[in-house]
Structure formats: C-alpha cells, structure tokens
C-alpha cells in the first residue's frame, strides 16, 4: 500500500462560540473534505458549562472526530490520546472500507472472529506508525483561556515529541482565535516540529469573543492552501492517496 495521509483539526476550547457562523456546520464541511475535527473541552474546577460541553460534543460528532472534556492539568495526556485515537479511527475506517470491498458490504472489523481481528489490528497499527499525519491545532485565546495557555503550550510540545517518535512524517500548524485583526489567525505555518511554539506563546494576546465557526473555516482554508501549492508542484498525483471519507 502507498503511503497515506491523515488530516486532523484539533480544537482546544473552554467555552461556547459566540460569534460568526455555526461551528457544527463548518465541522461537517471539514468531514466531507476528509479532515477530521477533534475537540478538547477544558473544564473549570468548580464551574460546569453544560452549553459549552454540549457544543464540544456536537462539533466532534459533526466533524467525524472524537472529543474529551478534561481539567487543564490532564491536558498533555489527553491531547495525545485524542490525536492518536482519532488517527486510529480514521485508519480503521479505511481498512474497513477495503474489507468491505473484499468481503462484502456488511463486514466490519468488529464482525470478524477474534483471531482475525488481531491480524487486521496489526495492519492498522502498522499504518498508524507510517502514515503521514497533518494536524492543525486551533487554540481558543478568549480571555478565560489566558491562565491555561502555558499548559496548552506544554501539551502541544509534548504531542510533537510523541508523534515524532513515529516512523511516519508529521506536519503541525497552529491557529488562534480570536486573532489580532481577524476572527482567526495562523500563528504557525506547517512545520514538522512544535519546538518553535515557545517563542510564539508569550506574544499571544487574549480577546473577548469566541469565533469558533470562523476559526474552523480558516483552518480548512489552511489545509487547502497546502494542497493547491502541492498541486502546482506535483500535478495531481497527491490527491489519490489521501485517506478520508
């Protein structure tokens, strides 16, 4: 099998969107384009924002991804678990499709006898190790996020340590919302390592609104910009081996 690509948006937020278009709609759009949207909702110790957490769940559902609600202290482990689990899920989806082509429409991995499942899982594991992963992290920088940003930074650097221990390549990017002059702003262009984050985070300013929808749209645009540039360089070879739905 040729080397595949997995594209993900990772949204880290602690509140409800209150500006611009509906984030659920944009998340569905992302899913259609083969980009999974995963969401981490950060909880406060003694305040539970049910609305916000419902939105977190909704965005992940619409975006074909997974979500997790955590306290800020658990962020590091959660960021990794969500990213890896979502990647495995995407790959399982791909393997499922292939299986269905071979074994018939109704065959899913779960329907195989236990012994066979192990062999399939071995293939999924292998893919997860070698696949080219592209993650755009969307960080909520509304005012309430300010004290949590150092932890977010640590978690992201830690994520890149983990993912760079894989055999496959990685590309990371980061976008914050609200941005300085717009709803969302790309603060880090595609890079294989997150080390440069240390210099970016101190400069981040936090603002009042939470334009989650527009931010997701900006993120989608950013994925496209890479593809079209690649398209110019390598004609249309690249498109065939994108994983997705």
């Amino acid at each position, binding site marked *: 099998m040729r080397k595949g690509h997995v594209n993900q948006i990772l949204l880290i937020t602690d509140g409800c969107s209150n500006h611009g278009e509906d984030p659920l709609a944009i998340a569905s759009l992302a899913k259609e384009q083969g980009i999974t949207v995963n969401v981490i909702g950060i909880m406060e110790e003694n305040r539970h924002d049910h609305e916000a957490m419902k939105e977190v769940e909704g965005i992940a*559902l619409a975006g074909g991804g997974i*979500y997790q609600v955590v306290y800020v202290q658990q962020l590091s482990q959660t960021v990794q678990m969500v990213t890896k689990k979502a990647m495995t899920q995407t790959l399982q989806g791909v393997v499922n499709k292939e299986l269905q082509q071979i074994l018939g429409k109704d065959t899913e991995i779960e329907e195989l006898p*236990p012994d066979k*499942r192990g062999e399939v899982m071995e293939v999924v*594991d292998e893919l997860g190790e070698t696949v080219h992963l592209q993650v755009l992290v969307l960080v909520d920088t509304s005012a309430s996020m300010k004290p949590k940003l150092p932890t977010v930074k640590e978690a992201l650097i830690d994520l890149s340590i983990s993912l760079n221990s894989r055999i496959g390549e990685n590309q990371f990017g980061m976008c914050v919302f609200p941005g300085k002059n717009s709803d969302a702003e790309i603060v880090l262009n595609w890079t294989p390592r997150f080390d440069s984050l240390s210099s970016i985070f101190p400069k981040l300013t936090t603002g009042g609104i939470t334009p989650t929808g527009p931010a997701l749209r900006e993120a989608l645009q950013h994925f496209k910009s890479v593809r079209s540039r690649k398209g110019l360089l390598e004609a249309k070879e690249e498109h065939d081996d994108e994983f997705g739905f």
Partner: protein
Amino acid sequence: MMNSVSNIPLGTVIQGKWHHHHYRIVKELGKGANGVVYLAESPHGQAALKVSDDSMLIASEVNVLKSFSKAPVKTMGPSFYDMDDAIYPGMPQKRSFYVMEYVRGPLLLEFVKQKGDEWIVVLMIQLLSSLAHLHQEGWIFGDLKPDNLIVSGPPATIRCIDVGGTTKAGRAIKEYTEFFDRGYWGFGSRKAEPTYDLFALAMVMVNCAYKKEFKKGAEPEKQLYRAIEGHPLLKRYERVLKAALQGKYQSAANMKSAMLKEGQLIESRKSRQKKQQQKNAPKPAVNQNQQVASRSRAAAAKRTSVRKKSGGLFETILIVCSVLALYCAYVVLFLL
C-alpha cells in the same frame, strides 16, 4: 464517545459469543483509562479478565499477550487464555474481553515497604533479565512503573501485569506514565528502543527509594541527578543510574552487569570498612564513617586515574622519541 466503562455487578456470568466459555466476575482488580480488569472464575480456575468497549484495543493487547506467551518471555507478563465478545444480562453496549493468568502478589512498592529496601536492587536486576529477553524478541515494554509490577512468589519474582504500553521496537511507545517517561523529563524521544525501558527502570528505582513521585521542575535533568545523589541507596548506584538515564546502556544485559559489578564493589568496600570499624570506631558513628570512607575512596580513585593518565602520556612521548631516534640512526648509518 470516549468510554467511561460502567461496572459489571459482581457475580455476573459473562459468556463468550464465539468460544462459548463462561466466566463469573468475582471482584474488580483495577481500572484504567480504557478498560476494567476483574478477577473471574473460569472452569480452569481463577483468571484475570479485562473488559473494554473498544474491541480493537482488546485485539491489539491480545496480540502483545500472545507474543508474551512464547517461551523466553513467559516469566514476565501474564499468560494469555482467551479473547471474545461479551454476552451478559444488562450489557449496555458491545463489549469485548480477554482472559489472562491471574498474577498474585503485592505491587512492587508495597512489597518493598514490607520487606525492606535491600530488595530493590535484587528485583531491578531480575527485571533487567526479563527485559533483556523481551527486547531480544523485538518488543519494548513501554509503560514500566511500580503500578504495573507485581512481586509474585515465593520465591519472589517480579512480573508485569499490564501490557497496554508494550510496543514493537522501532515504533512510537503506545502508552506511558509521565514520571517514568523519557520524553517528559526531556531525556529523549518516545521511540520504542531498549534505552527507553532502561530509563523507566532507573526511574522505577528512584520511585522505590523515595516511595513517591515528584513534579518536574525548571531544570529536570539536574533535578533527577540531585534526587539520585540525595538518597543513600541511589547514591551507591549513582554511576549506573545516571548512565541509564542518559541512554548509555544499549542493552538490558549491559545495565544488569554494570549493576552487579557496582554491587560487588560496594560489598568489598563494606567488608573493608567493617575491619576498620572493629579496630577503632565506636558503634554509633557507623554511618558517618561509611560515608567519609567511601568519599575518600572515591577521591583516591580519582587521583589514581589522573596519575594513570599522565603516566600514559609520558609513556607515549618516550616511545615516539625512541622511534624517532632509531629512525634517525637508520638514516644516518645506512642511507648516507
């Protein structure tokens, strides 16, 4: 979406959908992020049974367990018995499980607290032997920590009970725990290689000595070195531990022999000190004396090594000079 596995009532009988075996849940043994482990009764006796909503995760762990069941690695992890999809009354959603050997015994830290610190080194050396076998089979244990280590016996044998982090060498470590993780402390990547396990083993030893974990400070490297220097047991194995943290041992066997060697040195030192003490020191000052003695010994060792080095240099110069002289003589006598 992310599962919070709800409990199965004790006494429930779980039936396997494919293999039709029955297991009666006796009690909960442990709970992780992605599953619960129960003690269960099967027709063949007691066994540990792990249940999860994620059937693929179960399949993945069974892959590891199966390779553990091969001969040389057998003593380390639990043996694998069965894997199946669960059927039981009141089951909320699809669930899979696997059944493995029930490893009896206290967790590593409890054992050490009960029996004393002298067991730490013995058990670490045992663990190094097991790791050496595991690495040879192409696996890296990954999530090495006292919570995953049980001392069964007698005779006391260290065994691992959770293989969720076990990863094929060369890939990225599947699961880890911050305090024992090389990446967390800034000592390297999370690539599955023998040095990763050896780092974790050194941290297990630190954890056993202090009986607690501590948070990472601003200078993690120095912090760990200071922790090692600050505890008498760790201080004795300072060289080995630091080398393990720095990834200098390419194999578990190398680290094992280094630890054994260090232990012998300490023994011979101790016996020498005892003789001295019998001659002059009154009893209460034992500890101080030992420390002073070992320190002066270390200093002496340093001195001799310095002397050796300069001696070596002198020798080299002498040899070069004499060769040069001979060559000159050759030129003068035979060629001119």
